[in-house]
């Protein structure tokens, strides 16, 4: 019995180990805590892999002619981080925010929503999601001579033609705007 009395006495001196939340402003929250999902609109391409791997069906992507809207309903999200794992653009992160209490009336309002606007291709005019700058820099890291701003404004097929022209030593295609 003496063995435990020692433990008991030590614990008594130590005092309570629980935080009296919400009377204290914050409690133990490590940086890697899997909290609310956040979408980086600069990176999201709208490919939909996140909603394919989401077991809870918490991610919805609505595609329109002029852009796409990605919505995460926090009330369905089970914070398994599968979307973060499979997103090829690393556009999804889980921030250490676990505050999720809300009124019943507001239940459909607890969402993370980002709308990404598309722009017309500078050559053919087709509406496209411009490739994020950071990705372009990675893709063309060995091509210093390429004008990234110009490439960024091209749709995939025009970009392919452009790359072929460059390989063949031809000058870049005239931009549509310039022709007009």
């Amino acid at each position, binding site marked *: 019995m003496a063995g*435990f009395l020692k433990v008991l006495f030590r614990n008594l001196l130590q005092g309570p180990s629980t935080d009296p939340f919400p009377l204290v402003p914050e409690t133990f929250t490590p940086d890697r805590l899997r909290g609310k999902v956040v979408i980086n609109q600069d990176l999201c391409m709208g490919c939909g892999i996140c909603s394919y*791997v989401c077991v809870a069906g918490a991610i919805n992507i609505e595609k329109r002619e002029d852009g796409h809207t990605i919505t995460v309903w926090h009330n369905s999200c089970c914070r398994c981080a599968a979307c973060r794992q499979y997103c090829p653009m690393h556009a999804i992160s889980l921030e250490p925010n676990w505050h999720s209490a809300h009124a019943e009336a507001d239940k459909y309002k607890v969402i993370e929503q980002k709308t990404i606007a598309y722009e017309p291709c500078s050559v053919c005019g087709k509406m496209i999601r411009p490739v994020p700058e950071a990705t372009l820099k990675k893709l063309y890291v060995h091509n210093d001579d390429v004008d990234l701003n110009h490439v960024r404004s091209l749709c995939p097929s025009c970009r392919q033609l452009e790359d072929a022209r460059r390989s063949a030593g031809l000058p870049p295609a005239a931009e549509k705007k310039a022709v007009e």
Partner: protein
Amino acid sequence: MSISTYTMPLGPVHVALEEPVYFHLTVEGENIKNVELTSGHVHRGMERMAMQRTLVKNVTLTERVCSLCSNSHSFTYSMVVENALNLEIPERAKYLRVLAEEIKRIASHLFNLAIQVHIAGFKSFFMHVMEVREIMQDIKETVYGNRMNLAANCIGGVKCDVTDELLEYILKQMDVIEPQLEEIKDIFTNNHIILTRTNGLGILPPEDALALGVCGPTARGSGIVRDVRRDTPYAAYPDLEFDVITEPGCCVHSRAMVRVRELFESVKLIRQCCNKMPKGPVFNHMGKIPYNEAFAHTEAPRGEVAYYIRTNGTDKPARLKWRVPSYMNWKALGVMMRGCQIAEVALVLNSVDPCVSCTER
């Protein structure tokens, strides 16, 4: 007055953990003659749900079969899919999987031990064991981001890479927890209250344990050397050094002592994982899904978890079936409780570390 038998209903709320299951105890005075149980209150049809979801989604679904062995489910499920797809996993992922599994094992064993002393009426010690378990809970939250569902595994490897700083942190916490585990071991071995309540109670003779196919600490507490980590080596276990703990007592106390001593084996495994962690990628992408069937099993904290899968060339499994350790261990209660008194039912029940939500899926 002659002694008559009486059937006593117990439940539906689980007498050890707050889970629903009915017991029908046939008693003669205070002594139990026979035990039967009625379950099915939390049958959620999860195997069928799994057949309607894609292989990737089922990693998260299976992790939610049970909270205490959540990691073992996603681990074994990922393994069975890898077997069916013939998908190799990177060396680093093997170590990371073992690391997560052993962290969960310490937390799970401590939880069971705490509940045992709680039932024995030793509340202050219950609070202390739970407090020590908080060290493991903090590790899980700091490293993986959640106290229960680690979301560590994925098909082809792991989702959660652990940085060198965090490996350092885990090693430091192991140094903090080890002396406290020694203290717990000492109290479990020598404390008068624990010994009087549990020693020699709920006997499961080795021959019954073999016949009923029990697994995990329930089998090892009856002196049976059975550990999937040793018998069917998987992940990084073949490269790591650990002992399979057995106790000859066959009683509630020896099952508890198996868990107490396994805590130190897990600490040993965690230290080895942190020190030997290979560098490199943490997951491989899935290839083409063939027509195939596969089987995999692992040692969860409560015993053996087994998965069987049939794939049919689509991204959804044609059949996914799993069996949890509790499913095998419930039957042993009939043997253990024979001759026990009513007041001892909860202690015997807790000694097999039962899980209703696991059993019924």
